[in-house]
C-alpha cells in the first residue's frame, strides 16, 4: 500500500495544477503563490510524500482541495454506494453466470447454448459505458421503467447509507449493477463452462455415472463443486477490479460512489482525495485476496488436511 501511495503520489505531479482549479480567474498571481506556499506545494517531492504518508499512517487523511471537507469522511460516505453496487453486480453475475455456464457445458450443441454464447460475446466486447447508455435509453427513457441516475431512496443505518431497504433503492440499483456485472457475468459463465466440460470428461465423473449417481447430484455435488476452485480465484480477483473500475459505471449512472468521487477529483486536481482513494483501493485488493484464500479452505477439503 505504501508502494501504491508512492506511485500515485509521483503521478500526481503530472495531473495538473490544483491552484488554478482552486482559485477564480480574477485571483492575482500573488494570491495564488501564497496559497501554493500554504498548501506546501512548493516543497520538494520527497518531503511532500513523507508528509502525506506520515499523516496517513497517523490516521490523518487531510482535507479536500475542492470542498475543504475531511477526505476520510468524504470517502467513507461514498464507500457504501460502491460496495453495494459491486456486491449486487457480483451476485447478478454469479446467479446468472453459474447456471448458464453449467447449462452450456452440459448441452454444448443446443440452440439455446449457441444463442447464450453468442450473446455473451457482446458482453465481453462492448465497452461498459456503451452498455450503460443503451440500458438507460431503453429502460429509463423509452420504457420509463427504471430511474436513469442516482441511488433513489436510501436508508441510513448507523453510518451506512443503504439502497437495500427501499423499492426505490432497488429500482435504481438494477441498471448500474447489471452494467457493472455484465463483463463478470460472461466471464463467470465461460469459465464455469470450460471447467465443467473439463471435469465432465474426467475419470471420477465417468465412474460416478457408471455407478448410477443421480444426475442432479452428479452435476452439482460432484462436478460443479470441483469447478468452483479456479472460478472463485478468478472471480475473487475480479471483484477487486469491479470495485476499482466501477468508475465508468458510476459516471454513466451518476452513482454517488467512490469512483465518481475519484473522477470529480481528477477533474479538479484534488490531490488529497485521489491519493487516499488509490490507497483505499489497494487496501480492497489486499482484502479481497485474503478472503479468496480463506474461501479456498472452505471449499477445497484438501487444504484443511495437514
Amino acid at each position, binding site marked *: 500500500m505504501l508502494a501504491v501511495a508512492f506511485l500515485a503520489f509521483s503521478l500526481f505531479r503530472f495531473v495538473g*495544477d490544483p491552484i488554478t482549479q482552486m482559485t477564480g480567474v480574477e485571483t492575482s498571481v500573488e494570491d495564488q503563490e501564497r496559497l501554493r506556499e500554504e498548501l506546501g506545494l512548493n516543497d520538494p517531492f520527497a518531503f511532500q510524500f513523507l508528509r502525506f504518508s506520515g499523516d496517513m499512517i497517523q490516521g490523518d487523511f487531510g482535507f479536500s482541495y475542492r470542498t475543504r471537507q475531511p477526505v476520510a469522511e468524504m470517502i467513507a460516505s461514498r464507500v457504501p454506494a460502491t460496495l453495494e453496487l459491486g456486491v449486487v453486480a457480483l451476485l447478478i453475475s454469479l446467479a446468472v453466470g453459474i447456471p448458464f455456464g453449467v447449462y452450456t457445458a452440459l448441452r454444448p450443441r443446443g440452440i439455446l447454448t449457441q444463442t447464450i454464447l453468442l450473446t455473451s460475446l457482446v458482453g465481453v466486447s462492448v465497452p461498459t459505458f456503451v452498455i450503460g447508455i443503451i440500458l438507460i435509453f431503453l429502460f429509463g427513457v423509452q*420504457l420509463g421503467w427504471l430511474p436513469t441516475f442516482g441511488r433513489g431512496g436510501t436508508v441510513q443505518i448507523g453510518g451506512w447509507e443503504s439502497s437495500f431497504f427501499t423499492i426505490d433503492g432497488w429500482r435504481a440499483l438494477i441498471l448500474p449493477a447489471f452494467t457493472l456485472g455484465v463483463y463478470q457475468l460472461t466471464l463467470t459463465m465461460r469459465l464455469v463452462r470450460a471447467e465443467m466440460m473439463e471435469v465432465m470428461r474426467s475419470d471420477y465423473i465417468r465412474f460416478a455415472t457408471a455407478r448410477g449417481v443421480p444426475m442432479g447430484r452428479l452435476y452439482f455435488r460432484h462436478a460443479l463443486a470441483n469447478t468452483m476452485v479456479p472460478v472463485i480465484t478468478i472471480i475473487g480477483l475480479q471483484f477487486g477490479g469491479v470495485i476499482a473500475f466501477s468508475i465508468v459505471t458510476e459516471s454513466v449512472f451518476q452513482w454517488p460512489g467512490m469512483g465518481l468521487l475519484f473522477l470529480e477529483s481528477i477533474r479538479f486536481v484534488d490531490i488529497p482525495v485521489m491519493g487516499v482513494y488509490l490507497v483505499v483501493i489497494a487496501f480492497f485488493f489486499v482484502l479481497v485476496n485474503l478472503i479468496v484464500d480463506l474461501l479456498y479452505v472452505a471449499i477445497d477439503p484438501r487444504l484443511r488436511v495437514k
Partner: protein
Amino acid sequence: MKQTFKLSASIGCALLVSTVGVSAETFRWASTTDPQTMDPHAVNSAPVLSFLNNIYEGLVRRGQDMSIEPSLAASWEPLVGENGWRFNLRQGVTFQNGATFDAQDVMFSYQRASNEAADVRSWFAPVADVRVVDDYTIDFVTTAPNPLFPDSIANFMILDQDWAESNDAALPARDAENFATMNVNGTGPFTLASRDPGVRTVLTPNGDWWDDATHNVTQAIFTPIGNSATGLAALLSGEIDFIQPIPLQDVAQVEGRDGFKVLEGEETRVIMFGFGHEHEKLLYSSDVTDANPFTDPRVRLAAAHAIDIASIDRVLFRGKIEPASQLVPAGISGYSEANSERPAYDPARAKALLAEAGYPNGFSFGLKCPNDRYINDEAVCRAAASMFAAVGLNATLSTGPVRDYWPQLRADDFDMYLLGWSPGTFDMEHPIRFLLNSQNDEKKLGSWNFGNYSNARVDELLPQIQQEIDPAARQALVDEVVSITQDEVAYIPLYTQPLIWAAKDNIELTQRADNFFMLRWVNVN
C-alpha cells in the same frame, strides 16, 4: 410510435409519482458541476456564485437582462468630496435565522471577503476604506473615482455577523472546512434544506424574504450530473425538469421530442486566439527557429484573415455562434460600436501579407488548445489549423485538459493559443485589465495576458477608463483601446459561445447571459 412513447412516458411518470411523491411545485434541476462550498467568499467560481445567489444577496443584484438593480441596498450615490459610493441599506430585512440585517453585517462581510483567506478579495482592490455611517448607511471609499464599483460587487454576498462569529466561521475556510462550508444564513429567496456534496442539494423558499416572490417553487432539488449523456437521459425520462448546459449535438434529440424545449442564448464569453508577443523565437517550428514571426502585426493580421468564421459556425456550431470583433460581445457596456468589423475571410490577402512580412511560403508553429474547457474547443482548433494551413501557416496542434493547460500558458509554453474570456463585471474594462494591459504583478494587471501584449498607450488608457465618470468620454477612451488593439491584432477574437439549456415544456425560467440560473424566476406550470 409517438403514441407508444407517450403512453410509456406517462406510465413512467405515474411510477415516479407513486414512489417518490413529487408535488406539483417540486423543481428538480441538474448541472455539470456541484458548487464546491456554500461559503460565498471562499471561491470565486461561476458554479458557486450562481448557486449561492439563490440563498445570499448582495447590496446590488443583476436583473433578467443583466442590469444592476437595488437589492440589500435600496439606493446608492457617489460620495461628495471624496471618491467612492454611499449605499443606503434596505430596512426591515432579516436573515434566514431571524437576525436583523444592518450596516454592521455589510462591514463584517466586507472584512471577511477582502481577507487573504477569501478568493473574492480582488473585487475590493480599489477600496481604500469602508465606514459605517449609521445602522442603514455605509460608505465604500475608493482610491480613485470608480463609476463601475456598484456593478463590480453584484456577487459580493452579505453574511450575518453574529451567526458567522458564533459558529467559528468569521473567515472563509482555507484548508479545513468550517461551519459556513455546509450551512447557510442569507437574506435571499431560498434557504438550504439539506446538502450532500456531489450528490444532492435541496432548497426551500424563504418565507420571510423581503421581496415579492415571483416563482411558485416549494422545493428545489439540485443534482450534479457530470456525464452529459446521463443528464440528457435524466431530462428525457422525466426525472429532472431542467438541465444546464446540454451539448450542442443533443439539441436535435431534445427538440425532436414532445414536452421538452431547448433554450438558446449567447453567453458573454468570447473565444479568441492569442500570440506569444514577447517570445523571441517560435518554440514549435520546424522551419523558423531563430525568430518569432508573430511579433510582426502583418503576420498576425494574415492569421486573422485566414479564419473562416462562417464555416466554423455552420459546420461545428449549427449556426449558433455570433462572430466577434473585439473581446466583448455587442450589448456589454463599453462595447465599441465604432470597431464592430472583424477581419474578413480573405486567404489571398493573408498570403499577400505573409509575403510582405518575408514569409512567402509561410512557416510552421505550435498551436495550443484546451479540450475540455469551451464548447467544441478542440474541433475549433482543428478547423482553424486547416484554415491556417491553406495560407501557409502550418500549425502543429496540441490539446490537453484545462488542468494542464493553464500551467502551460503561464509557463509561456506556446506559439499561439486559444482562450475564452467572459467579462466578470460585464464591462469592457474587465478584458482590458486582464488581457490587454501589460503584465504587472505588482498592480495585479494583465494576469491573463499570457503572451504579454504590451502597448504603452493602452496601459495609460486603462486607469482613465476606470475613473472616467462621463459615459461618452469613457466610451471614447474604450474605443481608442479597441481600435489600437484591432490595428495591432493583439488577439484574434473569433466568436461568442452559445448558451444551451434544456427544460420540460411546463417550466418557465430565465436564461441570463452570465449562465447564472436563478430559482426566483422559475415557474412550474
